[in-house]
Structures are given as C-alpha cells and as structure tokens.
C-alpha cells in the first residue's frame, strides 16, 4: 500500500532518511495532539525492520515501511509521521550497541562482587582462629593430613547445641569440611562449610534436640586442597554424642 508523507508545521523532531532530514512528531508532541491515543498506526519506518508492507512517499523519495510488530527489546519508538487518511507511521530506531555495552558493563560490575562473594562463601563464616586449650603439638609428615579425633561430644540434654572445636590443625595443607551423621539412621545432623587450617567452628547446632542419652555418630571429614579446592583423601571418625541432664 502506498502512503504519502504529510508535512506539518508543528513537527518537533527530525530524522535522517536517505540523506534528507525528515521531520516527525515526538511521543510527547503526539500525546498532546491525541491525549486519548485515538489514532491509527499504518506501519513503521526505521533501520533493521522486516516484513515490508508498503511504500511511503516523502518528497521525491520512496521509503519502505514495515509492519509495526517489531521487537520492543531491539527497537525504540522515537515518534510518529503523519500520513494520508489520518493515519501515522511510527518512527523507530534500533537500540544502540552502546546501550547494550553499557548494560553488559553494569551487569559485569554487579557480577564480579557476586562471584567473589559466592567463592568466598565456601569458607564457613563461623570459623575462627583456634588453638587447643593445652596448645597444639603436631609433627605432621610431609604430604600427610592430621585428622582430629573426638571420643565423645558432650552436650546439655534437651538442647540442640554442642560446644566442640571442629578443628583443622594449623599444619594441614588443606581445608576441612565436617559432616556429622547419626550412625543408626544415617541422618545428617550437622554440616560445616570449609574450615581453613588453624581455624575451628566451636558452636555446633544440630538439626534436632537430644534428650538425655548416648548417640553413636560418624564425623565425616572431607579435605580439599588450598589452591584448587580439589578433593583429597578424607576420614570418618566414629564417635558419640553424650547428652547430659
């Protein structure tokens, strides 16, 4: 279908079409002219549009115009050109690559600290520097890891918390991750995150309360290399919780 460009004295914007400056209404001006939005769109002009549906005659030039079901993500509506039969052609423009770059930069800026936080979150936030009460005495052989052993974890009956130093001896060349299971049911009742050498988590909050009694447990110790956090040999310490009134 052929449409004819209508010149208007109150056009307030201009766009270059095939080397010629083409005036049109901005969205703001259009809102003043048609505050109720009661106008008909015949199509759209702009770089990168597809689905040609007709031609627009502007001065001595013919411009293709297209269906106006373009992507609102890729294209931005700049304004309107009045054409014959009281209709309008939308003037659209691809959203600039600069905007995309800016968006990606902002995203990257947001992601970098997020990645940093996520990597850091491998370390148990409650781990703190620790020295056993009588000092530490380890003569670790090269390429070996010292696993701490606990004959029993004593806690107050009727509570869910034991105060035990889940400790990674200072000479160990690895992180430790402790997981505690009830031996009878194999239910997991506690799991730490990674604990660096020389640090311990001392407040162990279990997933349940323990009434007075003795509960056999397994303390699984997973070891990870300090640099790449690769899985190393690990251990399982057979112990017990003693809940006392």
């Amino acid at each position, binding site marked *: 279908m052929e449409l004819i460009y209508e010149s208007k004295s109150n056009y307030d914007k201009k766009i270059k079409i095939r080397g010629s400056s083409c005036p049109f209404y901005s969205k703001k001006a259009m809102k003043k002219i048609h505050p109720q939005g009661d106008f008909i769109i015949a199509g759209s002009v702009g770089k990168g549009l597809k689905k040609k549906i007709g031609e627009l005659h502007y001065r001595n030039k013919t411009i293709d115009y297209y269906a106006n079901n373009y992507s609102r993500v890729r294209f931005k509506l700049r304004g309107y050109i009045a054409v014959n039969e009281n209709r309008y052609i939308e003037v659209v423009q691809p959203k600039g690559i600069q905007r995309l770059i800016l968006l990606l930069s902002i995203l990257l800026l947001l992601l970098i600290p997020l990645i940093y936080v996520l990597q850091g979150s491998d370390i148990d936030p409650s781990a703190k520097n620790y020295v*056993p*009460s*009588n*000092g*530490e*005495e*380890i*003569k*670790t*052989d090269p*390429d*070996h*890891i*010292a*696993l*701490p*052993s*606990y*004959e029993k*974890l*004593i*806690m*107050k009956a009727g509570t869910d918390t*034991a*105060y*035990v*130093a889940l*400790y990674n*001896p200072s000479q160990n*060349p*690895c992180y430790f991750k402790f997981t505690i299971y009830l*031996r009878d049911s194999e239910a997991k009742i506690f799991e730490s995150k990674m604990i660096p050498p020389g640090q*311990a988590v*001392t*407040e162990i909050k279990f997933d349940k309360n323990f009434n007075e009694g003795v509960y*056999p447990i397994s303390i699984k110790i997973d*070891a990870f290399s300090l640099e790449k956090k690769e*899985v*190393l*040999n*690990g*251990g*399982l*310490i*057979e112990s*017990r919780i003693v809940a*006392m009134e």
Partner: protein
Amino acid sequence: MKKLKVFLTGAMAFAMMMPMALTGVSAKESDPTSTDYESSAEVNYDTRNVIPDPDNPTDPDWGVQIPESVKLTKDTKAEASGVDVSVSLVAINGGTITKDPVDVYVRSANGYQLDSGVATNRKVAYAVKYETVAELNTTTNGKNFMKIATLKDSDTPADVKLTEKGKAYLLGTATKTTAYKDTLVYVVTTNGTTPTNP
C-alpha cells in the same frame, strides 16, 4: 576476747581433724594397738562441670595422620618404590594421645583404580600395601573397607604402635596423557565398630 579464744580453739581442732578426714582414716585406725581396723574412702563422680560451654569448647582428643593424596608416577610400580601412605596416631591437644587402641580402616572411592574420566581406557589399577595386611587392590577389595591397623600408645614400650607404614604403587599402565585420580577414605574408631561398606 573470750569469744575470740573460743573461735581459735575451735579452728585449731578443726584443722587437726582435717588431714584424717581427707585421707578417710579414722582415729580408731590410727591406733596401732587396735585390731578392729576400719577405713573408708569416698568415691565421687561429679559431673557438674563437664558440659562444655561456649568459652570452653571440647578440644580434639588426639589425631590420626593420613596421606594427603596418592600421587603416583611411572616410577612407582613396585612396593619398594611406592609412595608413602603411612598412618599414625598424633597428638593435637597439648601432646595427649589416647591409650585406647585405635582401629583404622581404609577404602578406595574408585576401588583402587585411578580414574581419568575419559571415555575409553579411563582407569589404571594400583595397590596399597600396609605392613600387617595383604595388598589392597581392585580384585581383592573393590570399594570395601579393610582394617589396616590397630594403633596404640602405651606406658609399656612393647605395646606402643603409633605408625602403620604403607606404600601405594601402580599395577597398570596409563595410556592417556591426563590426570588420573582416586581418593582414600580412612575410618578411625576406638569402640570396635566395623564401618559399613557402601
């Protein structure tokens, strides 16, 4: 003044009686001519202060030292040239080591096969040999736990066994230029519990 004298006299009497009361020996027993001996010893088990608190958490009792990883090379194809995988009882808390026997078991995550993760010829067999047990390998043990040592500290030197020496070595030959991996899991128990195989 009179009151002070009475107090001092009483205090002296109390002080004289104290040693006997503390040792649990009665006045009658201290008479060498008496044949009617009587003694008492109070047995106490006061558990009021044994529950650890946030300021005094339970320390590790002792430790077991295990190999960090098994790093085998083409030159470690025999027990004699194998890498050290010894396990030892070690002190962590101020030099204390348990006097109870500590059983140590081991199992291999991949059944004593180093895994490269590639599609073909991905595994290479290896073995672990501890002093007092037969060679552990994929055929004889698979992924099962095997008791490798009972470690013990003792006041009697002959009973002391703090280290179980062990070596790991290749049985097969790698055909891929990549990293082959396996992990060993050591179970430490003082209560005779046998770990459950996966």
